[in-house]
């Protein structure tokens, strides 16, 4: 059957008629339309050709003599670096860190590389570099704020203090007031391992930052005595342990209870005389939750003969439920709100 169909006579259809006709056979309007159509086609082809030629020339120049492309921008070297920061880093630090050659042109700058150079310090959270023609490089910096200090020894160099930001980034810190840094507690019991010359971000620092800011805002006097913040039990139990001058170990929970409630309980325990100079507390565990706070006291100064224990545990202090609504740390900072002491 297929052979039979393939040998069928071909039948001419009106579509076989050649539609193109000579311009002579056209009317004046037809010729005008033809000219316009031809002109449009020529214009499009010309434009395409022009673009193609430009690309070809550009590519050829780039391959053979790339300096010829860069040379026009060399005529505008960078004269000013306009550095703006929301922190302590100043113009000098930015200039030193960027270390721009004296005669470098504005268009020759590799902004991506310069940005990375700024971010390497760790203190810079974001950096935006823009060219402001004809000769100014604008650098806008957002800095990290230190939350804690960290003493670490790298290699054979002597141990030195590092700063830890809220996002866990560890950096050396430049330009901070020494008295301000002295008020920051130390961070302890965190595994540190340098990767590609830098410490990776420390886990859980957001929680620690929330606790510190809540304490700083609500119990500034107690906070001043805080010396070490330990994260030894953070990964396993979700607990943050603070060692202060007066109390050897204050344990805060991060799982359920709010820091504000825990800070308020701590303040109440200290203020209501449960912890006094004659019988200082060894540890206060605020991580238990609810209204019960286990407090471990040191052994009295003159122990009875034959008594072996050096510490006693009193019954858990019962703390009424906090009536005031807990405040988020950010709210406390912004309004300096101090809740009433109605427990």
């Amino acid at each position, binding site marked *: 059957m297929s052979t039979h169909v393939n040998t069928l006579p071909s*039948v*001419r259809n009106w579509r076989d008629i050649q539609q193109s*006709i000579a311009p002579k056979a056209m009317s004046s309007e*037809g010729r005008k339309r033809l000219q316009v159509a031809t002109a449009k086609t020529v214009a499009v082809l010309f434009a395409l050709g022009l673009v193609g030629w430009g690309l070809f020339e550009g590519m050829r120049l780039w391959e053979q003599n790339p300096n010829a492309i860069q040379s026009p921008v060399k005529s505008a070297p960078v004269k000013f670096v306009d550095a703006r920061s929301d922190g302590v880093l100043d113009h000098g630090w930015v200039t030193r860190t960027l270390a721009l050659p004296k005669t470098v042109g504005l268009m020759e700058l590799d902004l991506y590389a310069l940005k990375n150079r700024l971010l390497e310090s760790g203190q810079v959270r974001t950096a935006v570099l823009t060219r402001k023609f004809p000769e100014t490089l604008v650098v806008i910096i957002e800095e990290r704020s230190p939350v804690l200090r960290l003493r670490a020894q790298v290699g054979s160099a002597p141990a030195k203090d590092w700063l830890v930001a809220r996002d866990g980034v560890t950096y050396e810190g430049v330009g901070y007031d020494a008295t301000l840094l002295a008020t920051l507690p130390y961070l302890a019991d965190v595994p540190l391992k340098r990767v590609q010359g830098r410490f990776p971000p420390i886990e859980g620092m957001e929680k620690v930052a929330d606790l510190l800011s809540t304490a700083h805002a609500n119990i500034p006097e107690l906070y001043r005595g805080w010396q070490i913040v330990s994260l030894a039990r953070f990964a396993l139990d979700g607990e943050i342990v603070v060692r202060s001058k007066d109390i050897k170990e204050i344990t805060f929970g991060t799982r359920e209870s709010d820091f504000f409630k825990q800070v308020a309980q701590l303040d109440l325990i200290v203020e209501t005389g449960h912890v006094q100079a004659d019988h200082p507390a060894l540890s206060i565990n605020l991580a238990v939750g609810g209204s019960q706070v286990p407090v471990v006291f040191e052994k009295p100064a003159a122990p009875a003969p034959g008594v072996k224990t050096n510490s006693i545990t009193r019954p858990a202090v019962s703390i009424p439920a906090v009536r005031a609504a807990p405040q988020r740390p950010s709210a406390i900072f912004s309004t300096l709100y101090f809740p009433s002491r109605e427990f």
Partner: protein
Amino acid sequence: MSSKTKYIGAVEVGTSKVTVMIGELSQGRSLSIIGFGECQSRGVLKGAVMDFRSASDATHSALLAAESNAGVRIDEVYLAQAGGHLDGFYNEAGVSVSAADNMVSAVDIDTVMRLAKAKALPEGRMVVHNIRRPFRLDGRLVPDPEHLVGQRLDVGYWTVHGQENKIADNIHVIRGFNVPVAELILASLASGTMVTSAEDRQNGVLVIDIGGGTTDYALYHDGCAYMTGVLPVGGSHLTNDLSLGLRLTEGQGEKLKLRFGRGTMTARDKSEKVWLNGDFAIGDRQFPRQAIEQITSARVWEIFEVVKKRLGAGFVPDRTAAGVVLTGGTSKLPGIAEAAAKVFGITARLGEAPGYINENLRDPGYSTALGLLYFGLNASAEAAASGGRRRTGFLSRLFAKA
């Protein structure tokens, strides 16, 4: 112009006038008629171009008028084809269903269609249309036989063909305006589609389009065109008859035809006279009304008789339930429907454009151009639908791969 808007032109180069309509096709699914141009035809005789330059000038004037009316440029043209050189024949082919389970496949359908269309034409003739009639599977009519079970599949085509050089002349007139011809459509099919409903065509209807120089007809059965034809006789012959019979100029004859011509005779009084101009000026004359009606009705009657004869056995009054529908400029002649009813022995009426067409374009003389736009809309919608199918296929393949 947005990428999804196209301006199509419907052009009918008739013997007495050239009609151009411009349609704005939006998204390939809706069409608005936005331009119209008309010009007295020159260089065209009995639907065929005799003087290329004159015909081009007249057609291009109408095209320009339509473009300036619409304020846009035509992208492509749907051209009506008429003329006494057009002829048609019926050819049928059948194949045995090839599958072992006797289920008709796409290959069977393709084979039978190619066989039915493959009939050699005389030298110098070419196909204008291949109009397919419904498939017959073991004798029963089926619209789409694919996946149906049967032994033998038959199909027939009504093939319309014409002289190559005359068709080419018609196309070249349009190409002289530097616009491509997208489709060539038989005038009777264009007007027939416009003045009849799908129900009429399903029940059987005879459409007669009486133009200035030709009379086109199309007989529909079972929803498709069953037979078509063109007579090289039209309204201008009525004028010519009046001129010869009453010894008038052609202009005077045309005037009398338009004012007093009729398809059937009503005047009984031989002494009743009518004035040529009615202004009683020098040269104004009187003519017997009965003579005028006699001349015009005789010619109209003859046209219908010839159409009936051409249709031959194909015309069966019982299978033409929707009657005769008259259209074209000459169908405005009073009493012409009665004449058609008497000749064909079935009901006859004047064709009317659908209600959604503007009142100014509902004249029977415009039905062909309107039908061309309708074809343009359908072709565009089909193209859009097939594009959609292609997209679906691609997505299906993509998901199948995923």
